[in-house]
């Protein structure tokens, strides 16, 4: 394990039991043997279609989904936690250091609490501040960082637009002073202009406070603009992982390439030029053998149906899991 990593996982798996009858035990592998390293102070992107396991991975790292196998550790230089065994008082401590920003700012905020109370709640629940004055000072500090003014704090969420609500969610996630933030589709429900505003805010907060972000999104163009490193997931596995620039300029995996070419181009003359992917992502309860992508891959051969490819390093920091990546340049 490298020293400057905030989060490191080895073969991390998350499984859910479904069909709990005596005879019909079925296991859903949502995250299947993932090894990632998230450097301190980085903006780490996770991309994939619905059903790829990206949300479950984020939840596992927040101790909100059960880890079935593998290891996961958190190390911010002062505190170290082993996420596989974390519980009790230690887990409560970890909750202060790792926080989540949700997708839908309309569902995430209680309509019956004032904005001040919404932001203050984590401080009170976690016992971080002792007096009301202390809580208020802290709330005001963080609200200012998220560009909310004192007038806003007295109001209820219904008085705010989508972008303002997302800034309130961000303030609440940041108020306990976390080092690690999982942002799960945090701009997906927003209009483009508001999306740009929230992304700029997240970036500036990350720089200013030296935070580490895991940014989960299905939108490659958003990820490209915000993240330093991108991991692409498909059916619970990482198929490609590389620094953003590299994955954009020289994606190796056919799935990554297809994802890029499926982004609707702003050039009307580009119509029909995209490399189309047939079919849909298979059900995680009924996963194909071999390479999980072979059922949709235009380059699949016999070996892809039989053997699962390993995640190989093709260049420094760039790993790909495909039998044919060397032939597909």
């Amino acid at each position, binding site marked *: 394990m490298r020293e400057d990593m905030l989060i490191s996982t080895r073969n991390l798996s998350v499984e859910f039991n479904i069909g709990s009858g005596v005879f019909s035990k079925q296991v859903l592998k949502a995250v299947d043997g993932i090894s990632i390293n998230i450097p301190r102070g980085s903006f780490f992107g996770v991309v994939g279609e619905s059903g790829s396991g990206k949300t479950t991975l984020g939840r596992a790292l927040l101790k909100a989904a059960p880890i079935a196998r593998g290891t996961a550790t958190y190390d911010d230089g002062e505190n170290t936690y082993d996420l596989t065994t974390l519980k009790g008082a230690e887990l409560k401590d970890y909750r202060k250091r790792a926080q989540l920003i949700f997708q839908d700012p309309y569902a995430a905020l209680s309509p019956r609490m004032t904005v001040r109370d919404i932001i203050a709640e984590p401080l009170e629940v976690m016992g971080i501040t002792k007096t009301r004055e202390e809580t208020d000072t802290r709330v005001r500090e963080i609200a200012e960082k998220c560009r909310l003014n004192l007038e806003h704090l007295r109001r209820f969420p219904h008085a705010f637009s989508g972008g303002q609500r997302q800034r309130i969610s961000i303030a609440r996630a940041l108020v306990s002073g976390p080092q690690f933030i999982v942002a799960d589709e945090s701009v997906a429900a927003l209009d*483009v202009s508001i999306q740009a505003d929230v992304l*700029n805010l997240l970036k500036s907060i990350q720089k200013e406070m030296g935070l580490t972000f895991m940014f989960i999104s299905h939108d490659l*163009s958003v990820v490209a603009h915000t993240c330093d490193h991108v991991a692409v997931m498909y059916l619970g596995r990482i198929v490609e992982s590389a620094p953003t620039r590299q994955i954009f300029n020289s994606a190796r995996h056919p799935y990554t390439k297809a994802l890029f070419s499926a982004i609707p181009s702003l050039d*009307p003359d580009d119509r029909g030029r995209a490399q189309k992917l047939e079919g849909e992502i298979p059900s995680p309860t009924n996963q194909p053998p071999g390479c999980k992508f072979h059922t949709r891959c235009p380059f699949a051969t016999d070996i892809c149906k039989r053997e699962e490819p390993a995640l190989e390093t093709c260049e420094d920091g760039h790993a790909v899991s495909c039998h044919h990546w060397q032939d597909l340049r």
Partner: protein
Amino acid sequence: MSLLNVENLTLQFDTDEGRITAVDDVSFSLEPGEVMGLVGESGSGKSVTAKALMKLNAGNAHYAPETKISLMLEDQSIDIMSLKSPREMQLVRGGAISMIFQEPMASFAPAMTIGKQMVEQLLIHSDMSKSQAKALSIEMLDRVGISDASTRFGQYAFEMSGGMRQRAMIAMALSTKPKLLIADEPTTALDVTIQAQVIDLMKDLVDEFHMGIIFITHDLGVVAQTADKVAVMYLGRMIEQGPVRNVIRHPQHPYTQGLLDALPKLDDLEAPLTPIAGDIPSPLERPSGCVFHTRCPKIIGDVCKRDIPHWVDTNASHRTACHLCTVKQGETA
């Protein structure tokens, strides 16, 4: 004669907090086989405009008397505003005009099979027998790329994936052979790879059935890939319209320019994202003059706060409602 002509569409809603203007003096037309992208942020009135074409807005909606919507069917023109009873409306609702919604799970009845719903609407809108309706429905499911269509015909919406549900929705909307299809954010809830498939499918279907499509979306990339022309709305007003190439490459209105600047661009990862300053005002506090003046970076003075800008032709069939364009045109003239 155009397929659809909308003139001076103005629509207000009575709410507890007062009467709000959702659509303000909107006019446009659509030819058969033409795809119009209707673009704007949430709250811009694009869905309300589309629903007005079938008078599907809630009971508290008031249409201004000068509103005129006419739909050309075969050789007769139908004045939609004059249709009163639900029976008369049936001619357009689901018949001459079909609609596809954003969330297909919410638009199919959960306790009825897909097939039953498809057959039901065909029995209402045509004089087919039940078996003919079933045969056509299965053919349509097959046409939109659903494999094993006769099995899918007997399934419920929850048994299908999101992409497949949206295909079934399209099959259902097109089986009555509508002249006009309204697609309200049909790909927003889908993954990019599935979105690309659905966009392809819709293009094929326009070529085949030659209906007009109003494609509502907030995604300018989707518009660039599907539409022939674009109309941009802000706070209930149409502020720019024109051919898709013109509007996307040479946007004239500061709002359209702002929407484009806010998009993450793939060819330049370093380019900063520029949000449009401020938030969209509440419909209860509609700005006077140009509705965009409270957020406009290029405001030229009191004229923006005072007068509603007129349409200015900035290029062949490319029109913009902005005082800046009026001034520019005055200089060149």
